């Protein structure tokens, strides 16, 4: 996420959020790697050296060039689906593109982490034994045959396409070298480690389409199976997808839509879309500790509880067949256990299991004031109105703010007899700051009612009364008109949430935009804008049914095509 801790903007040209920094030089056309204003995730250019070449060239096709490596979430989910094994050993952190995690260049630490993870997987003998398509007698009698069968069964699944002769021979060679000295099981262990460290497993390869040469190519078959599964499940295709790919029945838009519909009712879809919304709502780095009042009560367990509570609430809202986003923004149901109950202002909850409760709608509604978000956009012991305001503009309104420029003095702290709000108001009062801060501050101050972990309060971190009366300005509709409904006086974060939910031209459109970025791994261009408008319309007409939105996404030009390198 963006941490704009202590810096303010002196961007003299104002703060339109639609233009990048002057002089930005981030690639041949800048679109994919993102200029500062448009790319809330920092852009792919810093992503482990991917350079600026990851952007689309023109039009609205996905250009998967260079090929993406699996993100860590995709890797973990894929290993689980392939082997039934949960990888817990830490992987090299992902880079980012368009505000979402991305697998770019792999270095020594990436490779070392994959090696450790492969060892963890191959040590799960019981799980692996189940995958060998031979009984013990057959293994004893003809071990090499069984190894061949194992490779033929698991190899195409791991690599998401049929094994070519050379690759199959390579896997068998690994088996033979190891089993000769250490027996069948050790040989299988070797095959599994090999599979998990092979580029065929680790990369999103679209070999059949790439072979067709430069320009726009329709995606079908095995590559389409992977596109669908990594979009909807954040994991590898299942047997049915691979069978359809083999049979050539993953080509027409109807065939693709029908598969998507099947996949969306599979439990894996929840896991897959969680990977989207946790990044969209920036809760992937919830702090592990707090200081001050929460120094002892906020520990690793509480952090894990907050994350689980967040997932439960978003799942319940977004997967609801109607009013998904509205419920996400304004619903009064939360999920708490005994240790979270005080933060949510709920009494009578016991035990460690999360339970659904109804919160006091005068104090909090929806997800924006959830502890996962409030604790993330805060200091170790206090609120941080600037970070909270920027979060809403970047992620919920999609009218992103540029990064703070250089030469910004540090926030001097809150003087005596001043509230946190007053201190930030004074600090950001110069005209050079106001271009952006007239937008940031009011939205951020609405969240002064929530402390460093998101508990409701009426006095701030320096014991001054919270004043959350503000006037929101400068929000535009999705078509760029200055009359967005969220503008105007507001008195609480609850009011903001209700107004965001009512103004679907902003909230619907923004969520759809974020999902589109997630799916295409790039910032949208002008041609994509038409597609996004249409998708936002689909979502609205379907009463905010997420499955209809995802189904629609699989029918877009970006999803159905690829643009090969010229």
């Amino acid at each position, binding site marked *: 996420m963006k941490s704009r801790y202590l810096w303010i903007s002196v961007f003299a040209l104002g703060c339109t959020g639609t233009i990048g920094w002057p002089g930005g030089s981030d690639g041949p056309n800048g679109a994919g790697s993102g200029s500062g204003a448009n790319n809330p995730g920092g852009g792919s250019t*810093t992503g482990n050296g991917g350079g600026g070449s990851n952007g689309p060239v023109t039009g609205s096709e996905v250009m998967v060039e260079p090929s993406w490596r699996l993100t860590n979430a995709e890797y973990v989910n894929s290993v689980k689906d392939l082997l039934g094994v949960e990888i*817990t050993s830490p992987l090299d952190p992902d880079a980012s593109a368009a505000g979402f995690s991305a697998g770019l260049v792999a270095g020594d630490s990436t*490779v070392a982490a994959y090696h450790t993870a492969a060892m963890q997987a191959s040590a799960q003998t019981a799980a692996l034994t189940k995958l060998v398509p031979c009984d013990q007698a057959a293994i004893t009698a003809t071990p090499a045959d069984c190894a061949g069968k194992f490779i033929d069964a698991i190899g195409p699944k791991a690599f998401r396409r049929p094994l070519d002769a050379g690759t199959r021979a390579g896997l068998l060679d690994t088996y033979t070298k190891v089993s000769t000295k250490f027996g069948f099981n*050790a040989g299988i262990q070797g095959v599994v480690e090999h599979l998990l460290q092979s580029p065929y497993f680790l990369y999103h390869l679209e070999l059949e389409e*790439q072979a067709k040469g430069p320009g726009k190519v329709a995606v079908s078959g095995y590559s389409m199976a992977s596109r669908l599964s990594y979009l909807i499940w954040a994991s590898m295709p299942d047997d049915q997808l691979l069978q359809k790919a083999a049979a050539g029945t993953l080509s027409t838009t109807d065939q693709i839509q029908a598969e998507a519909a099947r996949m969306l009712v599979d439990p894996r879809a929840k896991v897959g879309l969680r990977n989207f919304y946790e990044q969209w709502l920036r809760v992937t*780095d919830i702090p592990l500790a707090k200081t001050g009042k929460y120094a002892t009560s906020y520990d690793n367990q509480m952090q894990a509880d907050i994350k689980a509570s967040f997932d439960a609430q978003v799942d319940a809202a977004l997967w609801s067949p109607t009013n998904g986003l509205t419920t996400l923004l304004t619903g009064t149901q939360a999920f708490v256990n005994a240790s979270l109950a005080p933060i949510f202002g709920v009494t009578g909850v016991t035990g460690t299991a999360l339970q659904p409760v109804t919160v006091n709608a005068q104090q909090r509604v929806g997800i924006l004031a959830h502890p996962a978000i409030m604790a993330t956009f805060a200091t170790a012991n206090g609120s941080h109105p600037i970070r909270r305001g920027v979060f809403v503009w970047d992620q919920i309104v999609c009218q992103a703010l540029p990064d703070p420029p*250089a030469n910004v003095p540090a926030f001097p702290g809150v003087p005596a007899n001043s509230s946190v709000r007053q201190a930030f108001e004074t600090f950001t009062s110069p005209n050079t700051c106001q271009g952006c801060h007239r937008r940031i501050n009011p939205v951020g101050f609405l969240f002064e009612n929530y402390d460093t972990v998101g508990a409701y309060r009426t006095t701030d971190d320096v014991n001054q009364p919270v004043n959350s009366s503000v006037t929101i300005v400068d929000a535009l509709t999705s078509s760029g008109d200055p009359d967005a409904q969220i503008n105007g006086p507001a008195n609480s974060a609850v009011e903001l949430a209700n107004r965001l939910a009512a103004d679907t031209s902003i909230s619907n459109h923004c969520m759809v935009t974020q999902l589109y970025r997630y799916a295409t791994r790039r910032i949208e261009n002008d041609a994509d804008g038409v597609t996004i408008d249409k998708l936002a319309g689909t979502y609205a007409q379907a009463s905010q049914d997420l499955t209809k939105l995802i189904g629609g996404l699989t029918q877009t030009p970006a999803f159905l095509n690829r643009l090969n390198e010229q």
Partner: protein
Amino acid sequence: MPISNFNRRRFLQGLGISAATIPFVIGLDSLYAKADAPPDMKKRFLFMYTPNGGLYSHFRLRVHGPAMDISDGTALADPNLVYHPLQANAANLMVLDRLSWVSARQEYQTAATAPDKTNHPGGHQKGMGSLLTGTTLQGGTNDFGNAGLGSGISVDQVLATKVFSSKKFPSLEVGVQVDENLTDRYVDKRVSYDAPIKPRAPNCDPFALFASLFGTPGGTNNDKALRTLLDGSVLDNAYKDFARLQPKLSGADQKLLQQHADSVRRLENQLSTVVDCGTVMPPTAQAGLDTSNATATHKWAMTPANFPLVGAMMTDIIVEAMACGLTNVVTFMWANSEANLGYPWIPGFDTTSTRGHHDMSHARDPNLVLIDQWYAS
């Protein structure tokens, strides 16, 4: 200031030697007393980085002329000096002063002077990309969060690849709670570079680092032989998969995957090199921490309250790895350049301060001297 506070007293105590405190490039001759030490100096490079700079007024030694020989310790007598805790080791200490870390300034290149003819603004975190590479930054969008990355190989990697490549670990990158969120100010979190915009990630989990250096504690000889055979066969064949795939890929993909393949080859070489370090004690886990659970140890290592303990463990591991000859080159980052940590474990630290380390550095907070002295001790 690019001053490494390598000289921790613990480090020396752990070695049982009296002093070895040259803060930049050092020869740890005495580390090899137990081996057949040749008469010439051993060449080792250990670069330790501590965040947020320091108070120059307390760093500076006001010496000149003959007094610039500080070996008798007199120059470090003032208890307010950052280097005061090292007074007893003054004979082995060389203090570098008057270095100018231009790149750490807020704007260090303008369109008039920059090779790419654009301004390179951004905060002082950018200095990290230049510190050991001696280069300006490249890539990024010239703003605060995304300033780009160093555009060249770092000096530790020059040594690792040109001088010490035969070592089992040509270099180690070690960190103590280096922020793992790379979507914002990536440059802040890396000091070592393979090549332009290709930084190396520090290992921040002492249990994982120990296992990769000395092996997982326990295990039979048969287990070890199997592991060696597995690593050799698997990584060699995985490398061949890369080679087989290459002709099917576009130019951009070929380049991307070749870098990955090179790393696979390096890992294979590293794992096949056997170095016997004898019995090395693994870090002692706190009660309740399951050291076989990598997620748990990683989380524990990244929890702010454990900062000093993680740092001590890492220091011990580095000493053991260098003493055994596993590596000659180490970069050791204590947090990242704008880390906003509190240091409540330091005696005398004003725990009522609401400022973290980074905010203190802007405010010239008196706690800074205590922090710097803690790092120096």
